[in-house]
């Protein structure tokens, strides 16, 4: 597989063309993240269970490159999976996941994303070799982190 094919794995292109979790509701709390270099934009919401303890879904809207949009979609799909297994994320679990994601993406290709933990989103591992694209992939995850941090204060 060429570097380009590793970057744009079929999973990523599929999520770009057919995104998961798109669509926000009026009035829900969101985090808006913008990459001023290229104009990529993500507005993202975390949907909590009735007790406010676990994230049942990730919803978002945005515009930008395939990496930024697919990454948001893959995060939403990952939330769907956890919830579908009856084990939606706690704040701590999602925080740990975001930290791990960031560490892998900033590793310049030395730390792959664990497929057990990240499922299809592990396809984003290839981005870490492209320093200029890491920010694209991080956008949705930074939005989620921003929302978690707001709850913490």
């Amino acid at each position: 597989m060429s570097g380009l094919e590793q970057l744009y794995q079929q999973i990523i292109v599929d999520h770009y063309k057919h995104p998961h979790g798109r669509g926000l509701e009026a009035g829900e709390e969101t985090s808006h993240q913008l990459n001023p270099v290229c104009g990529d934009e993500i507005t993202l919401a975390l949907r909590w269970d009735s007790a406010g303890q676990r994230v049942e879904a990730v919803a978002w809207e945005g515009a930008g490159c395939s990496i930024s949009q697919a990454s948001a979609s893959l995060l939403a799909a990952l939330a769907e999976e956890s919830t579908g297994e009856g084990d939606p994320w706690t704040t701590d679990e999602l925080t740990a996941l975001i930290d791990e994601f960031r560490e892998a993406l900033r590793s310049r290709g030395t730390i792959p994303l664990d497929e057990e933990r990240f499922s299809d989103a592990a396809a984003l591992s290839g981005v870490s070799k492209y320093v200029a694209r890491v920010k694209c992939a991080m956008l949705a995850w930074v939005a989620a982190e921003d929302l978690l941090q707001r709850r913490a204060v």
Partner: protein
Amino acid sequence: MTAALLTPDEIAAIRAQFPILTREINGHPLVYLDSAATAQKPTRVIEAEAAFYRQSNAAVNRGAHTLAGEATELYEDARATVASFLAVDPNEVVFTSHATEAINLVAYALGTASIGFGAGANAAAAPYAIGPGDEIVVTELEHHANLIPWQELAARTGATLRFIPVLDHGGLDLEAAATIIGERTRVLAISHVSNVTGAVTPLEVLVPLARAAGALIVLDACQAAPHLALHPRELDVDIAVFSGHKLYGPTGIGVLYGRAALLNSLPPFLYGGSMITTVTMERAEYLPSPQRFEPGTPRIAQAIGLAEAVRFVTEIGLDRIAATEHALTQRMLDGLARIPGIRVLGVDAPGPHVGLASIVVDDVHAHDAGQVLDEAGIAARVGHHCAQPLHRRFGVTASLRLSLAVHSSADEVDRALEAVASIRPFFGFDERGTA
């Protein structure tokens, strides 16, 4: 275009002067098509800068030792070289850090004049004061460096910022310009060549309108200087700026041309040493241009490097560079027109286009398109090219820009076209396109 095109042998000889062009990127010989962002440097420019540090380094315009004299002479020779390139007087050439600083310098000086601060003891700056009711006119295609300083000047003075709109074809609305530029216009700030469409601004229409209105005319010539002979007096503009690094010179150096009488009337921008005559604890008197606008230790090595870059393009001949790049631009535009699913921003703007094309690929974001080119060893710019309003006007947030230089070859353009044609198929979109 009457000048003879550069022959393939001549282009090969020019290419041999750019050491970076021997690099391979992702296993392919580098095709550098991002000269509109920054140009590559020929060996002689790199050497000129290094030679100054090796042999002649000293502070200029101060001290009496031999090196200080030598450095001052080299620095002022550099100014004379640039002045001759522009066909103006050396005291009309101010070195700044970049073109952005040059535009800010003018805007700030006008702002200072507007709050009643004159040029030292005299009131020469007073005619340049602007305020409520006055208008500053730009165009919708300006890049941020020739927009935001004017927004800020308008905000500080109470003047109104207006813009000449861009029509659907990508050219300026000249009918609107004729009504927008009028007796209230105090400043007209425009690009010589758009950094997104490559279209040459019809100065022959806009300049007379601004002259009739008595406005100060500021020309951002960053994208023109590497490609066209730039003679501000012939163009009848008051101010012209360009950056050194886009003209095969070093980074950290920009050029501000201004009519001598104008420069000597404007209040300084940055204050400090090397720009003064007499200083007391209460006040200071300022030197005339160019020292007036060059406080502190100036960009000596960069100016010397820039002068070498100016000699480099002058020896080849701007007329031959223009003719050659024109033909190559046409090859690129013709080739792009044959690729399905590609839109070239502003390609139908009337008049000549200089050295670049910004494209939008249907269904594929510019960032992704640029990645495909990079994989093929082709360096192109992706994003909004610091011209967000113009991209908004075209209904897009980003584009992919291919920009040519004196070392660009037909073979390189063809390689880029081939790579562009592969973008949609790579992402699984059919080759027919939706356009």
